[in-house]
């Protein structure tokens, strides 16, 4: 059994406009993927594609008007969509931990670092305070915070972005999670620090046997750090598969365009860059959402693209999957 199984997840923003009409932003549509224990899955896609929303839907962190319309999320045998809010809360930060984009502002500005680490441990694991403190020190070591004894008493505002991100990672590790979701963990950081943090994350997943979902809009990061890749566009996963497979033979025009736009030009050519705006979620075109931007589009694209298997564990949502000119 997989650690995480997401099936047909649909998250919509359902709201009333000022003309008394109900409007639906179809932000996630039939998102499905699985993640095995200990593996790293990379989520890529342009801003607004729904990557963060997928993570929030999984963890039950949606706020109105966002709502899971249908679908199922199975984590470690439990159905998260059917779980009572309290149980889900107990799961978050313990079994499923998160690392986010703005580490400096995400720490509680009025609590010392060590106390924040202890707090999260106490909230989930409980036990004697001294044990939590010891664990906090260990985790600060593990994430490579120099001089943890002293740093422990620092305030969040005294940390650099990279250091704050290390603290956040330490917090995520406190309760030994099975799954770590890292949502653009390096976006706000200096370029030199980015690689350090990513290396650290990769190293930690191996050391602690965690699975990780790493969300990014940088294809290079996925290529480098993950085992599997899921390419998102307008709330759907348009292509998914093992990293080597997908980069070897990208089957979706969108994936190709992403690869083409990556500076390092990872091997495969043939993808033209796709211009244009992301589609209006309130008014998604029928069929393939990429239709208006895709150079290969034809009439058939007005019908929903089928999910086609093009290689081992390699799926593509496209009418032309497998027979695009290369």
């Amino acid at each position: 059994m997989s650690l995480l199984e997401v099936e047909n997840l649909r998250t919509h923003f359902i709201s009333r406009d000022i003309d008394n009409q109900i409007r639906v932003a179809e932000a996630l549509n039939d998102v499905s993927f699985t993640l095995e224990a200990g593996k790293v899955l990379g989520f890529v896609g342009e801003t607004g594609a729904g990557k963060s929303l997928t993570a929030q839907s999984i963890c039950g962190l949606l706020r109105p008007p966002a709502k899971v319309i249908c679908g199922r999320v199975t984590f470690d045998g439990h159905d998260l969509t059917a779980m009572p809010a309290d149980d889900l809360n107990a799961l978050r930060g313990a079994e499923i931990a998160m690392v986010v984009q703005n580490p400096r502002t995400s720490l509680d500005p009025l609590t010392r670092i060590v106390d924040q680490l202890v707090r999260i441990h106490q909230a989930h694991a409980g036990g004697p305070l001294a044990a939590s403190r010891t664990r906090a020190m260990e985790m600060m070591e593990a994430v490579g915070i120099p001089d943890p004894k002293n740093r422990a008493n620092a305030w969040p505002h005294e940390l650099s972005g990279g250091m704050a991100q290390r603290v956040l990672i330490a917090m995520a590790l406190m309760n030994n999670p099975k799954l770590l979701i890292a949502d653009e963990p390096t976006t706000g950081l200096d370029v030199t620090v980015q690689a350090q943090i990513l290396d650290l994350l990769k190293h930690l997943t191996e050391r602690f046997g965690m699975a990780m979902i790493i969300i990014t809009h940088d294809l290079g990061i996925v290529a480098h750090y993950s085992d599997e890749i899921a390419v998102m566009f307008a709330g759907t996963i348009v292509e998914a598969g093992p990293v080597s497979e997908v980069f070897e033979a990208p089957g979706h025009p969108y994936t190709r365009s992403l690869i083409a736009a990556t500076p390092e030009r990872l091997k495969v050519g043939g993808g033209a860059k796709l211009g244009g705006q992301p589609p209006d979620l309130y008014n998604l075109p029928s069929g393939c959402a990429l239709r208006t931007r895709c150079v290969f589009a034809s009439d058939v694209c007005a019908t929903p693209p089928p999910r086609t298997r093009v290689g081992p564990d390699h799926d593509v949502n496209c009418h032309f999957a497998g027979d695009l000119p290369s």
Partner: protein
Amino acid sequence: MAIPLLVGIVFVTFMLVRVGGLDPVGRLAGPTATAEEFEMIRAELGLDEPLWKQFAIYGGNVVRGDLGESWLSNRPVLTDLKERAFISIELLFWGVGIGTLIGVPIGLRAAFRPNGRFDQISRVLSLLGFSIPTYWLGLVMLFVFFYLLQWAPPGIGRISLMVSPPDHITGSYLIDGLLTARWGAVQSAAAHLVLPVICLAIVSAAPIIKQTRAIALEVLSSDAARYARASGLPPKTVRRLVLRNSATPVVTFVGTEITGLVGTMSLIEYVFAWGGLGQYGLNAIVRGDFTAVQGYVLTLALFSVIVFLIVDIIVNLIEPRSELT
């Protein structure tokens, strides 16, 4: 920061008072005065000097603690102000204190369930509080509690005419009465305080509710609170985090609110014939007693500087980010 602000304010009011129409000469001289008499009064008041010199003289006097003489009371303005300051601060203290004690918890509770029933009701009530004219509220209270129910004393002054005020120590009859063990005076002073304090509390609670709610909502949607929720901290812990992070902006707001409420307080003093600084100021402005107006304005500015200072100290105690701790 505070000193240039004070100097600037003194200068602006000085100019406003001189250049504007608050001219006491006409009133002092009376309708039948001749041109010579006018000149004499002008010279006596120092109004025949050039403006810059007048300001220099005034500024020098202020530094020496001489705020001039009020023509309404024929006494040094400083004496008038000193006598009244504590009377007003007492009213402000109780009113704003109770207003804060009511407003902050309501605002917080509303923010924790935005758009819930409690939030809707408290919102309408706070908007209503914004809309009630202070003086009208005072009058209605007098009508209901003094005239109809006869629970409250009449709205004239701070103590019953039948009770002799306690010896002057602080200026507050309540405190002076307690200090000199004059229980009758204490009781009467407390009874006179009730209505004006309730008025001020109602009027000051409204913006505090609204602002506290807005602040807490913002903290609730901050990265820190969202991350706390994402890490599965229990709701109680998240709430604590939000409360603590709201403290600084709320304290700062209440500070600015206090200085703004001096206007409201003045109106309450006017309705209840309180005889404090606020009433003194209103009177001076309406009657054109310009030395008194200047002294009053200076006092207000000084008062806000002190309030901001206190706010700074409190914020420094809460915030690890400040340099002082």
